[in-house]
C-alpha cells in the first residue's frame, strides 16, 4: 500500500515537476519574474480539485469516453501553449534580452494545466482510501514521499539547467521542451485511440525487451519524454510530427524576430 502510493504519486508529480523546473529555469534565463509560478500552482490546484470532483460526471460524456476526450484535449492544450512558448522564447535574443510580456502568462498556463491533470488523478486516488483513517494516513505518507522524490528530481533538473552556460541551458531546455511536448501530443493521440476516436492499429515496434515500460528507466523516460514501448503508427506520427512542428515554429520565430530587429539608432550596433 505504502509503496504503491509512493509510485503513483511520484509518477504524477514527476511530469508536472519536470515542466515547472524547465520553465522556472527559462524564467531566470530570460529575466522573467517568477511570481507566475505561485499563481499557476494555486490555479492548477484549484482546478485539479474541480476536475477530481467532476470525474464521475465527465466519465459519462461522449458515450463513456469523456475522461479520455477531456484529458486528450488538455494534453493538446498544453502542447499548443508549448508551441507558442517555442515561438516566444526566440524573441529575447533578438530584442536585446527583454522577454515578451505574455511569456509568464503562457508559462503559467502550461503549469496550471499540467497541475490540473496530474493533481486530479492524485485526488481521485486518495479519495479511495478516506473510509479507513489508518489506511488513509499510510497512503498519505506514501504520497508525501512520492511527491518529495518527484519535487527533488525537478529541483535537480532545475539546478542542472541553472549550472549550465546560457547557450547550453537554452539548447538543453529547448530540446527537453520539444521532447516533453511531443510526448504529450502522442499521449493525447493514444487517449483518442482508447476512446475509439482515432483508429487503432497494431504496434509498429516493440522495444519492451530493451526498456520495459514498468521498469524504473521506462517509467522515468515515460514521464520525461513520453516513452512508449509499443506505439502504433498514429502515436509515432504524432510524436515525431509534433516534435518537428515545434522545431519549425522555433526556426520560424528566429527568422521572424531577426527581421523585426530594430535598426540601431545613434549608439554603436552590438
Amino acid at each position: 500500500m505504502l509503496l504503491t502510493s509512493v509510485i503513483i504519486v511520484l509518477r504524477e508529480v514527476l511530469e508536472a515537476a519536470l515542466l515547472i523546473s524547465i520553465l522556472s529555469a527559462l524564467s531566470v534565463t530570460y529575466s522573467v519574474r517568477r511570481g507566475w509560478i505561485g499563481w499557476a500552482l494555486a490555479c492548477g490546484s484549484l482546478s485539479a480539485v474541480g476536475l477530481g470532483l467532476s470525474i464521475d460526471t465527465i466519465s459519462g460524456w461522449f458515450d463513456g469516453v469523456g475522461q479520455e476526450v477531456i484529458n486528450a484535449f488538455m494534453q493538446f492544450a498544453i502542447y499548443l501553449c508549448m508551441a507558442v512558448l517555442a515561438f516566444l522564447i526566440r524573441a529575447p535574443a533578438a530584442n536585446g534580452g527583454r522577454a515578451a510580456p505574455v511569456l509568464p502568462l503562457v508559462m503559467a498556463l502550461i503549469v496550471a494545466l499540467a497541475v490540473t491533470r496530474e493533481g486530479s488523478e492524485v485526488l481521485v486516488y486518495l479519495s479511495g482510501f478516506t473510509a479507513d483513517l489508518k489506511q488513509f494516513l499510510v497512503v498519505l505518507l506514501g504520497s508525501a514521499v512520492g511527491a518529495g522524490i518527484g519535487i527533488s528530481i525537478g529541483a535537480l533538473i532545475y539546478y542542472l539547467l541553472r549550472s549550465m552556460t546560457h547557450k547550453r541551458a537554452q539548447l538543453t531546455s529547448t530540446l527537453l521542451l520539444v521532447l516533453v511536448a511531443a510526448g504529450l501530443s502522442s499521449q493525447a493521440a493514444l487517449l483518442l485511440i482508447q476512446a475509439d476516436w482515432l483508429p487503432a492499429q497494431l504496434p509498429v515496434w516493440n522495444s519492451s525487451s530493451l526498456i520495459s515500460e514498468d521498469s524504473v528507466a521506462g517509467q522515468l523516460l515515460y514521464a520525461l519524454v513520453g516513452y512508449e514501448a509499443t506505439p502504433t503508427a498514429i502515436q509515432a506520427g504524432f510524436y515525431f510530427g509534433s516534435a518537428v512542428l515545434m522545431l519549425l515554429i522555433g526556426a520560424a520565430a528566429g527568422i521572424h524576430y531577426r527581421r523585426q530587429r530594430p535598426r540601431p539608432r545613434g549608439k554603436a550596433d552590438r
Partner: protein
Amino acid sequence: MTSAPRLLACCLFLLAASGAAGQARAEKPVVALEIRNHLFWPSELVVPAHTKIKLQVTNNDPTPEEFESYELNREKVIMGKRTAVIFIGPLAPGEYPFFGEFHPRTAQGRVTAR
C-alpha cells in the same frame, strides 16, 4: 504569433475529423469485466485476435480503481459503482497482462488474444 491561430485551427480540425471517424465506427464485440473487492472477475479474458474489442469494466467496489496495462497501452480510472468503456485491440495473438493501479497486489488479470 501568426502560427498560433493556424495551429489551433489544425488541432480543431483534427478533433472534428476524428470525431467524425468515431461516428462511423462499426459495432464491436463487447467483453464484460468486473471489479469486486479489488479483484478482477474473470481474471482471464479470451478475445479474438486482430479484432477491436469494447471492454466494459464494472467497478462494484465503492472506491475508484484504475485499469492499467502496459502491454495493451491502456489506462483509465473507473469510479466506484460505475461502468467504464475501454476499447482495446486489434491485438496480435498473445497474452496481455493488466492490473488495477490503485491495488496492484490483488487486482491482476490478463487478456488472451487467440
